[in-house]
Protein backbone atom coordinates (compact mmCIF):
# COMPACT_ATOMS: atom_id res chain seq x y z
CA UNK A 1 0.00 0.00 0.00
CA UNK A 2 1.34 3.37 -0.98
CA UNK A 3 0.03 6.90 -0.48
CA UNK A 4 -1.14 8.36 -3.76
CA UNK A 5 -1.02 4.98 -5.48
CA UNK A 6 -2.72 2.21 -3.53
CA UNK A 7 -1.67 -1.33 -4.24
CA UNK A 8 1.75 -1.88 -5.82
CA UNK A 9 3.00 -5.31 -6.90
CA UNK A 10 6.48 -5.70 -5.41
CA UNK A 11 7.44 -9.22 -6.40
CA UNK A 12 5.84 -12.48 -7.39
CA UNK A 13 7.06 -15.99 -7.84
CA UNK A 14 6.63 -19.65 -7.07
CA UNK A 15 8.00 -20.59 -3.66
CA UNK A 16 8.59 -24.15 -4.82
CA UNK A 17 11.30 -22.86 -7.14
CA UNK A 18 14.50 -22.14 -5.24
CA UNK A 19 15.41 -19.12 -7.33
CA UNK A 20 11.99 -17.53 -6.90
CA UNK A 21 11.92 -18.31 -3.21
CA UNK A 22 15.29 -16.64 -2.67
CA UNK A 23 14.09 -13.53 -4.46
CA UNK A 24 10.86 -13.44 -2.45
CA UNK A 25 12.75 -13.90 0.82
CA UNK A 26 15.07 -11.01 -0.03
CA UNK A 27 12.18 -8.77 -0.97
CA UNK A 28 10.31 -9.74 2.19
CA UNK A 29 13.32 -8.81 4.32
CA UNK A 30 13.80 -5.56 2.42
CA UNK A 31 10.22 -4.49 3.12
CA UNK A 32 10.46 -5.34 6.81
CA UNK A 33 13.81 -3.58 7.08
CA UNK A 34 12.13 -0.52 5.58
CA UNK A 35 9.83 -0.55 8.59
CA UNK A 36 6.73 -2.03 7.04
CA UNK A 37 4.41 -4.58 8.56
CA UNK A 38 3.44 -7.72 6.68
CA UNK A 39 0.09 -9.49 6.80
CA UNK A 40 -1.42 -12.47 5.06
CA UNK A 41 -5.19 -12.40 4.43
CA UNK A 42 -6.75 -15.74 5.32
CA UNK A 43 -10.07 -17.49 5.11
CA UNK A 44 -10.73 -19.18 8.46
CA UNK A 45 -13.16 -21.96 9.26
CA UNK A 46 -16.71 -21.11 8.31
CA UNK A 47 -15.52 -18.71 5.65
CA UNK A 48 -14.61 -16.01 8.16
CA UNK A 49 -11.99 -13.64 6.83
CA UNK A 50 -9.08 -12.55 8.99
CA UNK A 51 -5.43 -11.77 8.62
CA UNK A 52 -2.22 -13.07 10.07
CA UNK A 53 0.65 -10.75 10.91
CA UNK A 54 3.97 -12.29 9.91
CA UNK A 55 7.44 -11.28 11.05
CA UNK A 56 9.52 -13.78 9.13
CA UNK A 57 9.23 -15.50 5.79
CA UNK A 58 8.94 -18.90 7.44
CA UNK A 59 5.73 -17.80 9.19
CA UNK A 60 3.91 -17.35 5.89
CA UNK A 61 1.47 -20.24 5.38
CA UNK A 62 2.38 -22.50 2.49
CA UNK A 63 -0.95 -21.94 0.77
CA UNK A 64 -0.87 -18.14 1.08
CA UNK A 65 -1.26 -16.48 -2.28
CA UNK A 66 -0.06 -13.03 -1.22
CA UNK A 67 1.54 -10.99 1.51
CA UNK A 68 0.46 -7.38 1.98
CA UNK A 69 2.96 -4.83 3.29
CA UNK A 70 1.75 -1.66 4.90
CA UNK A 71 3.20 1.14 7.05
CA UNK A 72 3.55 0.17 10.68
CA UNK A 73 1.06 1.54 13.15
CA UNK A 74 1.88 4.46 15.38
CA UNK A 75 -0.19 6.12 18.04
CA UNK A 76 -2.16 8.93 16.48
CA UNK A 77 -3.55 12.14 17.92
Amino acid sequence: MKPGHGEVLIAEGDVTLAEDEQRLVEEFRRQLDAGLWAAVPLVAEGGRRQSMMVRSFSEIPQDADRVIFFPRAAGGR
Partner: protein
Amino acid sequence: MLLVLAATALVALALLSDLIIPRLDEGWHRLRARRQRLDGPEHSFAWPRRRHREPPLVYDPGRERRAEQRARALLRSCVNEEEWAMYRDLGFIRVWGGQANGPGEEGDTGGAPYAYLVYPHKPILAYLAQTHRLLGEYCVEFLDETRPYGSARLPDSDDVLAKWMALTGDERRLIAMANMHLPGRQLDPAQVTRDLWRLKQWERARMRETPARIG
Protein backbone atom coordinates in the same frame (compact mmCIF):
# COMPACT_ATOMS: atom_id res chain seq x y z
CA MET B 1 -14.00 59.69 -12.69
CA LEU B 2 -10.65 58.39 -13.97
CA LEU B 3 -9.22 58.54 -10.49
CA VAL B 4 -12.10 56.47 -9.12
CA LEU B 5 -11.65 53.85 -11.83
CA ALA B 6 -7.90 53.70 -11.22
CA ALA B 7 -8.43 53.31 -7.48
CA THR B 8 -11.01 50.55 -8.06
CA ALA B 9 -8.63 48.75 -10.42
CA LEU B 10 -5.83 48.96 -7.84
CA VAL B 11 -8.04 47.54 -5.11
CA ALA B 12 -9.20 44.73 -7.41
CA LEU B 13 -5.59 43.94 -8.33
CA ALA B 14 -4.58 43.85 -4.68
CA LEU B 15 -7.43 41.51 -3.86
CA LEU B 16 -6.64 39.21 -6.77
CA SER B 17 -2.89 39.19 -6.23
CA ASP B 18 -3.07 36.08 -4.05
CA LEU B 19 -4.56 34.24 -6.98
CA ILE B 20 -2.59 35.82 -9.80
CA ILE B 21 0.96 35.87 -8.44
CA PRO B 22 1.32 32.08 -7.82
CA ARG B 23 -0.05 31.39 -11.31
CA LEU B 24 2.33 33.88 -12.89
CA ASP B 25 5.22 32.38 -10.93
CA GLU B 26 4.26 28.86 -11.96
CA GLY B 27 3.84 29.91 -15.61
CA TRP B 28 7.17 31.65 -15.54
CA HIS B 29 8.99 28.58 -14.24
CA ARG B 30 7.19 26.38 -16.73
CA LEU B 31 8.27 28.67 -19.57
CA ARG B 32 11.87 28.63 -18.38
CA ALA B 33 11.89 24.84 -18.10
CA ARG B 34 10.44 24.52 -21.58
CA ARG B 35 12.99 26.91 -23.08
CA GLN B 36 15.82 25.04 -21.38
CA ARG B 37 14.56 21.74 -22.74
CA LEU B 38 14.28 23.12 -26.25
CA ASP B 39 17.57 25.03 -26.31
CA GLY B 40 19.70 22.73 -24.21
CA PRO B 41 21.72 23.89 -21.24
CA GLU B 42 24.29 25.79 -23.32
CA HIS B 43 21.62 28.13 -24.67
CA SER B 44 19.89 28.78 -21.43
CA PHE B 45 18.94 32.28 -20.45
CA ALA B 46 21.71 34.78 -19.89
CA TRP B 47 20.57 36.17 -16.60
CA PRO B 48 21.95 34.77 -13.37
CA ARG B 49 20.74 31.29 -12.59
CA ARG B 50 18.57 30.89 -9.57
CA ARG B 51 18.97 27.92 -7.31
CA HIS B 52 17.37 24.89 -8.94
CA ARG B 53 14.02 24.15 -7.38
CA GLU B 54 12.36 20.76 -7.38
CA PRO B 55 8.99 20.99 -9.08
CA PRO B 56 6.35 21.02 -6.38
CA LEU B 57 4.23 17.90 -6.07
CA VAL B 58 0.87 19.04 -7.22
CA TYR B 59 -2.24 17.45 -5.77
CA ASP B 60 -3.68 15.39 -8.59
CA PRO B 61 -7.32 14.41 -7.97
CA GLY B 62 -7.18 11.86 -10.80
CA ARG B 63 -4.19 10.09 -9.26
CA GLU B 64 -5.84 10.07 -5.84
CA ARG B 65 -9.06 8.68 -7.32
CA ARG B 66 -7.19 5.90 -9.12
CA ALA B 67 -5.31 5.11 -5.90
CA GLU B 68 -8.59 4.90 -4.02
CA GLN B 69 -10.07 2.60 -6.66
CA ARG B 70 -7.09 0.25 -6.34
CA ALA B 71 -7.38 0.41 -2.56
CA ARG B 72 -11.09 -0.45 -2.69
CA ALA B 73 -10.39 -3.43 -4.92
CA LEU B 74 -7.72 -4.66 -2.52
CA LEU B 75 -9.98 -4.18 0.51
CA ARG B 76 -12.80 -6.04 -1.22
CA SER B 77 -10.51 -8.97 -1.97
CA CYS B 78 -9.50 -9.30 1.69
CA VAL B 79 -12.64 -8.81 3.77
CA ASN B 80 -15.79 -10.92 3.57
CA GLU B 81 -18.85 -10.00 1.54
CA GLU B 82 -20.75 -8.60 4.52
CA GLU B 83 -17.87 -6.37 5.62
CA TRP B 84 -17.38 -5.11 2.10
CA ALA B 85 -21.08 -4.31 1.72
CA MET B 86 -21.00 -2.57 5.12
CA TYR B 87 -18.11 -0.37 4.05
CA ARG B 88 -19.66 0.34 0.68
CA ASP B 89 -23.07 1.25 2.14
CA LEU B 90 -22.20 2.77 5.51
CA GLY B 91 -18.61 3.98 5.19
CA PHE B 92 -17.15 1.91 8.03
CA ILE B 93 -16.46 -1.70 8.98
CA ARG B 94 -17.30 -3.46 12.23
CA VAL B 95 -14.63 -5.78 13.56
CA TRP B 96 -15.48 -8.03 16.49
CA GLY B 97 -13.14 -7.86 19.47
CA GLY B 98 -11.47 -11.05 20.59
CA GLN B 99 -10.08 -10.35 24.06
CA ALA B 100 -11.79 -11.82 27.07
CA ASN B 101 -11.94 -8.64 29.12
CA GLY B 102 -12.38 -6.12 26.39
CA PRO B 103 -9.90 -3.88 24.64
CA GLY B 104 -6.94 -2.47 26.51
CA GLU B 105 -5.49 -3.41 29.84
CA GLU B 106 -7.84 -1.30 31.87
CA GLY B 107 -10.94 -2.29 29.96
CA ASP B 108 -13.14 -4.73 31.79
CA THR B 109 -16.25 -5.63 29.90
CA GLY B 110 -17.07 -8.54 32.15
CA GLY B 111 -16.89 -10.89 29.21
CA ALA B 112 -19.57 -9.03 27.24
CA PRO B 113 -19.04 -9.07 23.49
CA TYR B 114 -17.57 -5.92 22.07
CA ALA B 115 -16.59 -4.66 18.65
CA TYR B 116 -14.78 -1.87 16.89
CA LEU B 117 -15.97 0.56 14.27
CA VAL B 118 -13.23 1.19 11.74
CA TYR B 119 -13.47 4.46 9.84
CA PRO B 120 -10.94 5.76 7.31
CA HIS B 121 -8.46 8.15 8.88
CA LYS B 122 -10.34 8.37 12.15
CA PRO B 123 -9.78 6.68 15.50
CA ILE B 124 -10.95 3.11 15.97
CA LEU B 125 -13.97 3.14 18.23
CA ALA B 126 -14.65 0.31 20.69
CA TYR B 127 -18.17 -0.32 21.98
CA LEU B 128 -20.22 -2.97 23.72
CA ALA B 129 -22.19 -4.87 21.14
CA GLN B 130 -25.39 -5.30 23.12
CA THR B 131 -25.79 -1.99 24.91
CA HIS B 132 -23.88 0.15 22.40
CA ARG B 133 -22.00 1.73 25.29
CA LEU B 134 -18.93 3.44 23.88
CA LEU B 135 -15.72 2.17 25.46
CA GLY B 136 -13.01 4.31 23.96
CA GLU B 137 -11.31 5.79 20.95
CA TYR B 138 -8.05 4.22 19.83
CA CYS B 139 -6.03 6.67 17.79
CA VAL B 140 -3.67 4.96 15.41
CA GLU B 141 -2.07 6.02 12.14
CA PHE B 142 -0.35 4.18 9.31
CA LEU B 143 1.87 6.84 7.83
CA ASP B 144 4.36 6.28 5.02
CA GLU B 145 7.01 8.87 5.81
CA THR B 146 8.70 8.39 2.44
CA ARG B 147 5.76 10.45 1.09
CA PRO B 148 6.03 9.11 -2.47
CA TYR B 149 3.50 11.63 -3.78
CA GLY B 150 3.88 14.32 -1.17
CA SER B 151 1.51 12.90 1.40
CA ALA B 152 2.14 10.28 4.09
CA ARG B 153 -1.53 9.25 4.23
CA LEU B 154 -2.73 6.04 2.63
CA PRO B 155 -5.87 6.10 0.48
CA ASP B 156 -9.02 5.82 2.61
CA SER B 157 -9.71 2.17 1.83
CA ASP B 158 -6.06 1.22 2.42
CA ASP B 159 -6.25 2.87 5.83
CA VAL B 160 -9.35 0.82 6.65
CA LEU B 161 -7.66 -2.35 5.38
CA ALA B 162 -4.52 -1.66 7.43
CA LYS B 163 -6.66 -1.29 10.57
CA TRP B 164 -8.68 -4.39 9.69
CA MET B 165 -5.54 -6.49 9.15
CA ALA B 166 -3.88 -5.23 12.30
CA LEU B 167 -7.04 -5.81 14.37
CA THR B 168 -7.82 -9.27 13.05
CA GLY B 169 -4.15 -10.26 12.96
CA ASP B 170 -2.94 -8.96 16.31
CA GLU B 171 -5.60 -6.96 18.14
CA ARG B 172 -3.66 -6.76 21.39
CA ARG B 173 -0.57 -5.34 19.74
CA LEU B 174 -2.48 -2.70 17.79
CA ILE B 175 -4.52 -1.56 20.78
CA ALA B 176 -1.36 -1.40 22.90
CA MET B 177 0.28 0.87 20.31
CA ALA B 178 -2.71 3.16 19.94
CA ASN B 179 -3.35 6.24 22.01
CA MET B 180 -6.50 5.58 23.95
CA HIS B 181 -8.95 8.39 24.64
CA LEU B 182 -12.38 8.57 26.16
CA PRO B 183 -15.25 8.53 23.66
CA GLY B 184 -16.05 11.93 22.21
CA ARG B 185 -12.56 13.25 21.76
CA GLN B 186 -12.56 13.06 17.95
CA LEU B 187 -15.64 11.12 17.02
CA ASP B 188 -18.91 12.78 17.87
CA PRO B 189 -20.79 10.34 20.15
CA ALA B 190 -24.09 11.40 18.60
CA GLN B 191 -22.75 10.55 15.16
CA VAL B 192 -21.43 7.20 16.38
CA THR B 193 -24.79 6.42 17.97
CA ARG B 194 -26.45 7.21 14.64
CA ASP B 195 -23.91 4.97 12.86
CA LEU B 196 -24.68 2.10 15.23
CA TRP B 197 -28.39 2.62 14.61
CA ARG B 198 -27.75 2.68 10.84
CA LEU B 199 -25.74 -0.53 11.18
CA LYS B 200 -28.62 -2.21 13.02
CA GLN B 201 -31.12 -1.11 10.36
CA TRP B 202 -28.75 -2.21 7.62
CA GLU B 203 -28.35 -5.67 9.18
CA ARG B 204 -32.11 -6.06 9.53
CA ALA B 205 -32.61 -5.13 5.90
CA ARG B 206 -29.98 -7.66 4.86
CA MET B 207 -31.62 -10.36 6.94
CA ARG B 208 -34.94 -9.63 5.27
CA GLU B 209 -33.26 -9.81 1.88
CA THR B 210 -31.36 -13.02 2.62
CA PRO B 211 -34.21 -15.47 1.81
CA ALA B 212 -34.84 -13.59 -1.41
CA ARG B 213 -31.17 -13.74 -2.30
CA ILE B 214 -31.00 -17.43 -1.56
CA GLY B 215 -34.24 -18.11 -3.39
